């Protein structure tokens, strides 16, 4: 039996240097509940190290937290990588860290990169600059995420900066992506032949759920979302808002 699930598949935490420091796990979960979301994906730049805290903060909530990451590949394309389990994300996180340039973050320029507990207390700082390109190609990223049971969605394809269309001119037709994400309210070309999702790309609490995708699913899992994106078995994207 399917029902509607409201999702925001692109939410940053305070770990992303460009995100607000108020984006603590507890506050994100509260904001998601206030926005009447059923599913959020946590997608920090090139890191999954705050995901477990958000999942823990939501443990007693009806909210489903999908472990994810906003990956920046060599071509400077941003891709949402969404995984079926925290373990799969953490394995991916450890793998890509080897491909993240060893450049130190300067908090005065980029902002802090705190790894926090559920309440937002700083456990340590990620010292390597996260907003940088991995030394992996877009194909290597999509394949690597798929090998770990995850899915890839090129982010904000309606923008010029860091979008697959801006960087590469067009989407390589063989690239096995699950959908494309748009974050703008209008304008920007949407490529034909791809399932579209909308998400907030929230860097501030007030933006969580501002853009959302309503799915018809049987359960709030990545496998169901994958089916929904393909329109299989009665699952589908019901509405973008």
């Amino acid at each position, binding site marked *: 039996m399917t029902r509607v699930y409201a999702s925001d598949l692109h939410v940053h935490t305070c770990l992303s240097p460009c995100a607000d420091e108020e984006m603590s796990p507890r506050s994100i979960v509260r904001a998601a509940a206030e926005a009447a979301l059923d599913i959020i994906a946590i997608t920090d730049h090139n890191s999954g190290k705050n995901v477990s805290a958000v999942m823990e903060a939501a443990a007693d909530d009806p909210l489903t937290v999908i472990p994810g990451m906003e990956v920046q590949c*060599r*071509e*400077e394309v941003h891709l949402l990588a969404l995984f079926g389990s925290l373990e799969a994300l953490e394995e991916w996180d450890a793998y890509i860290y080897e491909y993240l340039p060893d450049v130190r973050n300067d908090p005065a320029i980029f902002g802090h990169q705190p790894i926090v507990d559920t309440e937002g207390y700083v456990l340590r700082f990620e010292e390597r600059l996260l907003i940088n390109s991995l030394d992996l*190609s*877009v194909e290597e990223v999509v394949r690597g995420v798929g090998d770990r049971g995850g899915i890839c969605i090129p982010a904000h394809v309606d923008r*010029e900066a860091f979008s697959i*269309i*801006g*960087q*590469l*001119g*067009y989407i*390589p037709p063989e690239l096995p992506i699950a959908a494309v994400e748009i974050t703008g309210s209008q304008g920007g070309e949407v490529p034909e032949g791809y399932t579209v999702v909308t998400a907030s790309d929230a860097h501030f609490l007030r933006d969580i759920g501002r853009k959302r995708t309503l799915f018809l699913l049987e359960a709030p899992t990545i496998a169901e979302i994958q089916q929904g994106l393909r329109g299989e078995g009665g699952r589908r994207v019901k509405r973008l808002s």
Partner: protein
Amino acid sequence: MKLTTLVEELALKVQTAQKGLGREVKGGYASDLLSDVMANSQEGDVWVTIQGHPNIVAVATLRDLAGIILANGRQPDAETLQRAEEEAMPLLCTSLPTFEVVGRLYRLGIHGRG
């Protein structure tokens, strides 16, 4: 000026499409955003970039560019090489950074076209 002259003057390493080196270069364009190259490069330009993704070949072919110079020691992906060979698109590599490549091209008389 022909591509082959640029190869000699800048000591570029020819990776693909040796036969295309006789092509006349009409101007130059430098950018790593392929959407920008699609919109603004002109037929006969030599294109300087550090983007090694296979899509560069399609964009250069679409715009009928004279050739691609891959700067800053960037290595093209294997598929980029294969496609460039198939499309007879000269792919020229150099360890020089983009700024240096463009400066030397300009000194040789290759200009941007607005």
